[in-house]
C-alpha cells in the first residue's frame, strides 16, 4: 500500500525533521534518493490527506495559550445543529464523534487560559446543552509514533 519512500517519510519524519540549510538534501543522502523526489512525495501525501501536517508542532501552553478536552451529550435530532455550532468556533481544534452517552468530544485551543471558560459558556448558550470540561491535570509522558511495517 505504501512504497519504500512513503514508509520512510511516515516512520522517520514523525519523530523529527532536520533543522539545517538543505534538510531534504540531507534526507536524500541518507535514503539514497533525490531531494526533489522527497519534496514531491511529501506534497502528494499531504494532498491525499495521509499526512495532515508538515512543520513545527507548537505547544500552545508554552505560548500562553491553553487546551481543554470537552464532551457533550447530544441527542440524535440535535446532532447536525450542534456539530455545526461547535465546529463553527475557530477555537475547536479537533472534534470526534464517540460511541458513548457523551458522544461528542472536542478539544479547545485558546490564546489564554481564561478564554476556555468563555468559549465553553458560549457553546452552552448557543446549543442549550451542557459542556463537560476535562482539563488535563497531569500528563504522563509518551512518545508513540505510528509505524508502518
Amino acid at each position, binding site marked *: 500500500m505504501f512504497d519504500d519512500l512513503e514508509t520512510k517519510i511516515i516512520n522517520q519524519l514523525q519523530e523529527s525533521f532536520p533543522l539545517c540549510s538543505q534538510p531534504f538534501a540531507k534526507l536524500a543522502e541518507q535514503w539514497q534518493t533525490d531531494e526533489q523526489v522527497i*519534496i514531491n512525495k*511529501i506534497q502528494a501525501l499531504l494532498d491525499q490527506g495521509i499526512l495532515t501536517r*508538515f512543520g513545527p508542532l507548537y505547544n500552545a501552553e508554552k505560548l*500562553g495559550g491553553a487546551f481543554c478536552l470537552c464532551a457533550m451529550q447530544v441527542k440524535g435530532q440535535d446532532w447536525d445543529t450542534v456539530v455545526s455550532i461547535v465546529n463553527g468556533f475557530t477555537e475547536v481544534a*479537533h472534534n470526534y464523534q*464517540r460511541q458513548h452517552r457523551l458522544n461528542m468530544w472536542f478539544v479547545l485551543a485558546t490564546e489564554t487560559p481564561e478564554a476556555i471558560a468563555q468559549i465553553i459558556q458560549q457553546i452552552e448558550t448557543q446549543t442549550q446543552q451542557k459542556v463537560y470540561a476535562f482539563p488535563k491535570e497531569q500528563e504522563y509522558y509518551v512518545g*508513540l509514533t505510528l509505524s508502518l511495517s
Partner: protein
Amino acid sequence: MMKQLSATDKQLILATQAGLPLCAKPYQQLAQQLQLTEQQVIAKLEQFIQCGIIRRIAVVPNHYKLGYTANAMSVWDIDDDFIDALGEKMAQLPFVSHCYQRPRHLPIWPYNLFIMLHAKDKSTIHTQIQQIKQQLQPHYQRYELLYSSKILKKTGLRLNP
C-alpha cells in the same frame, strides 16, 4: 503566563504554524519572507525546540489513512492515591499514545485516567486492554472503552500570538 516573545518570534510562529514551505531550502525561504538570515531562522527554531515552544518539527499522519482504524479512548476510575504511579507506568506501554489524568464528573463520569489506544483492528485493542487491566489491578474500579466513530473536525492549531 505569557512567555516574552519578540516581534520576530511572533512573525516566525505565524509564518510556520500552518506548516513549513515545501522546497529545497525551507528555512531560507522563511528568512526571505521575514527579512532575516537563514541562520537566524534556524537558530530561532532551535531555541523554540529547546524551550519547548515547539515540540518537534515533523510530519503528522492521519491515523485512519495509515490503517489505524481502531482508535479508542480507554477511561479508568483509579484510586487517587495511585494515579500518578500508574499513569507513569501506562505511559511506558508501547501502544499508548497519550495518557492523562483528568477530572471526574460524577455521576455521569467516574473516570480520572484517560489512555488513548491505536490499533489496526478492535481485537488488538482488546488485547491491549487486557494488558492494561493486569497492570492496573487492584487499583481500578471500572473502565470504559470509547471508540471514535467519526472525525467531525481536525484542523491544526492556529495561534495568534
